[in-house]
């Protein structure tokens, strides 16, 4: 009976209403972004303000402004920015995920003094308003010699991302049945083996979410990068993008073009990760 039911739902006729809802929502989600695309493609800043998000004139001039940026030594700055952004974001993701998985495992599977206080402390860090942190953080980075280094930025971004990652991963680890581990212990597996061979592979959906989150934290941040880095070749992409925002006017075309360039890799990353989002616990593997 169930088999037949599934088959009906798998046809277009059986799922048309879902597509109707999704098309409406997708349109609403993309409409403002189409505007960004229109601004990026319209030459100079003279885009028109109408409800129509389809560009009437098309030119790639706005993209070249960012792509062709050079400094006084004639260096192509764009590639420096891409390199820095990629390094910082990947390092943040790697550090963030590694530290978070390990911490989340401790929170999920061990009972130890300070466990709930520790989870609370992580939540609390999300409550610190940035307004009190900026200058002390600068002084700290300066005192530790991490100013003007990608390591320093990575450290800042990773610690920003860790609390969410730990909470998210701990929540997911909690849903993995303990019976699996108990069976493994019977077979003589160590804690570390259980963690790396059972828990982590089963948690791919949650790891994919936290990886995307950590990457985005680093990829879009600009204030710290603009404050800490001492050289235009050590800026990241968002800092370069922010230069188009002036005190009186904003170069919308170039800014929009840059925003599109900046968001491409994020979408590519999501595309690569989304397979993992839906391939976590296989129903048969962990039936309780």
């Amino acid at each position, binding site marked *: 009976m*169930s088999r037949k039911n599934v088959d009906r739902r798998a046809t277009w006729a059986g*799922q048309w209403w*879902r*597509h109707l809802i999704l098309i409406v929502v997708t349109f609403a*989600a*993309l409409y403002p*972004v189409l505007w*960004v695309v229109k601004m990026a493609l319209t030459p*100079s*800043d*003279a885009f*028109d303000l109408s*409800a129509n998000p389809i560009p009437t004139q098309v030119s790639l001039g706005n993209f070249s402004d960012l792509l062709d940026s050079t400094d006084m030594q004639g260096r192509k700055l764009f590639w420096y920015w891409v390199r820095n952004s990629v390094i910082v974001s990947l390092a943040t993701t790697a550090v963030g995920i590694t*530290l978070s998985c390990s911490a989340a495992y*401790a929170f999920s599977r061990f009972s130890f*003094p300070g*466990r*709930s206080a*520790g989870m*609370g402390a992580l*939540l*609390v*860090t999300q*409550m610190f*308003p940035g*307004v*009190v942190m*900026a*200058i*002390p953080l600068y*002084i700290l980075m*300066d005192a530790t*010699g991490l100013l003007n280094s990608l390591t320093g930025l990575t450290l800042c971004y990773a*610690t920003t991302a860790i*609390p969410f990652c730990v*909470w*998210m991963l701990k*929540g*997911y680890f909690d849903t993995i049945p303990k019976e699996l581990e108990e069976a493994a212990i019977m077979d003589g597996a160590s804690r570390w083996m259980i963690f790396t061979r059972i828990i982590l592979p089963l948690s791919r*959906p*949650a790891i994919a979410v936290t990886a995307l989150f950590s990457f*985005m934290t680093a990829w879009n941040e600009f*204030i710290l990068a*603009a404050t800490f880095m001492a050289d235009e070749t050590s800026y990241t992409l968002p800092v370069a993008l*922010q*230069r188009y*925002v*002036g*005190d*009186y006017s904003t170069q919308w075309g170039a800014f*929009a073009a840059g925003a599109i360039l*900046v*968001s491409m890799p*994020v979408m590519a990353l*999501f595309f690569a990760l*989304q397979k993992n989002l839906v391939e976590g*616990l296989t*129903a*048969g593997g*962990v039936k309780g």
Partner: protein
Amino acid sequence: MLLTALLALLVVGIAAPAVAEEPDPNRVLLWHAYRGEERAALEQIIRQLHTESDVRVDLLAVPYEAFRQRLTAAIPRGNGPDLFIAPHEAVGEWSRGHLLEPLPYPNDLSPSAFLESTTDALTFDGQLWAMPLSFKSLALFINRDLVSGTPATLDELLAMGAGADVPLAYEAGNFYHHAALMHAFGARLFDADGAIAIDTDAMARSLALAGKLVADGAVPPESDGALVSNLFNSGATPFVINGPWFLGEIREDVRFAVAPLPSVTGGGPLRPFLTVEALYLAAQRRSSNEAVQSVARAIGGLQGSLVRAKQGRQTVPLRAAAADPVIADDPVLAAFVAQGAQAIATPNRPEMGAMWEPMNRALRRVLRGADPRVATAEAEQEVGFYLRPPPERAAPGPYLVLLGVVLLLGVGWSLRTLQTHRVMARLPAALPAYAYLLPAALGMTLVVFVPFLAGAAVSLFAHVGGEFTFVGLRNFGRILSSSEYGITHPLSFWFTLVVTVAWTLANVVLHVSIGLGLALLLRDPWMKLKGLYRVLLIVPWAVPNYITALIWKGMFNRQFGAVNAFLDLFGVEPVSWFSNFFTSFAANVATNTWLGFPFMMVVTLGALQAIPRDLLEAAEVDGANAWQRFRHVTLPLLKPALLPAVILGSVWTFNMFNIIYLVSAGEPDGSTEILISEAYKWAFTRQAQYGYASAYALLIFGILWMWGLLTQKLTGAQA
């Protein structure tokens, strides 16, 4: 292994401190915020200097949004530039904050070589601090395809523009633009003695005229820079009032002229604010006077001035340059020079920083139809709130005793906990757990907790002009008592708290329900095109929110926005979104919902995978309908993985500063501000009251902490 490698990397980073080099007196580090042609002109001048002398200049472009913060953070720590280029307005604040040294003018380029109005703008406390490089002010742009004459008065201008869709376009709701009208009526922000003089007849008359222009339909009420450019380029308006930056926004095929602003009947000529961009010498600079002087000469002297005028399109204040054909024969530059002579420099006293917000509010209030005289009175009162003297100095003695008592109690409590929970006995068994935790805990302590404690300590101080005074808990007392204004005033902590809670609630409910709904639609393996939908639906999260938030603001524009155009299809009257609290609030929520639902969707998609499919199929076989399956199987199983995202989401939304700042900007009358945006304003736009802002932030922290405890109790009870 990866972990060890990365930790090693961090250690190397820490262990290799910057080698203390002997500073080279001939090396000059120069910060600027120029882009495009202005930057190219500066680079050309520096290249020329490099061929002529031993001085080496390193240029660093710092984005405008980070410029001030970077200066105040870097200069006192000795990481600042030697020279920097910035507008004149902050000269009072910076010189009092010990960020500046007076710039030594070269012998052959004395202050008298520059227009007096520009050196005056850079003089504070009787000292000339910097060298003027260029000046900027609003002027009149005329579309020559539509109008051939140049109006001498505002009435003439309106008559000439009467046939167009919009006779005149300028940013009517922006006080910087209104200042031209204000000066035309003889009104000033400060009187001759430097006292605040907002609540005057002349000020009210200027506001009344602005209100009338909008009410008559001569000027669009809600216009920002993009809208003004658009109206001009599309030929909808023949006249635009804007600054030299507008030159880059005019479409190439539009024939235009620039002229000084007209006069008003019953007043004088429109006199805009004059902004002087100047070369400053930073305190703690490392380069020698000689090097600094040769850089100043290269940039500010005749040759440099002409390069900046010709290539960078700057209006330069050097008298000797004015007669040069580069400037004299250029109609656009000449018009800006003429306008500059009529402009009035923005006051450079530190109090000026507190003026913008109240004046913008008064102006917008009048544009919405309020009585100008009431608006001026309220603005003056509001400035008074920002400029009130700091709390009295407090004796630190009692606080130290209190701190001691708290510490003792803390130690006592910890010891008791250790005993009652038999911590020492459990410790050996817990060691592996600590090993898993250690790396994260170390990082968090260093980068998050330590700076937080340092920042929190600031809440016990008052900050005035670079000096901190210990005031104990008086900042908190002021905020919580809300004594100067009633608790229903938008500046009141309690009013803002209610708005913030409503904001958080609305957003979280919408984020979760939309995110969850979409995830449920997209989870099933047999769903067609699910991969495509998923990728398209995260786009709002992927594009930097700075730009999309501004697009949303544009979509809510009353006259030209897409939202009203859409409502119009259903016969709904156009809504003026930002002049009413509820619609303005709704605009903020709509924007933030759009930005936030993809994240919830992604989290839910991940979390849904923890639910075994057989369980749902079993429920289906047992005859449970879709809603029952969702309510009794999916939702309970989803909870552990979804709850963290909901709790954290609520905390993030509570502190979501960007959207408020970019979309409603607090309109109307600051009523849609949330606590965090108020804290930012106290720190950055209201006289740098860091202590007060920090106290605000700590209160936010306290509220969220209680919320955290509450959720922990709720979730703990269920576990």
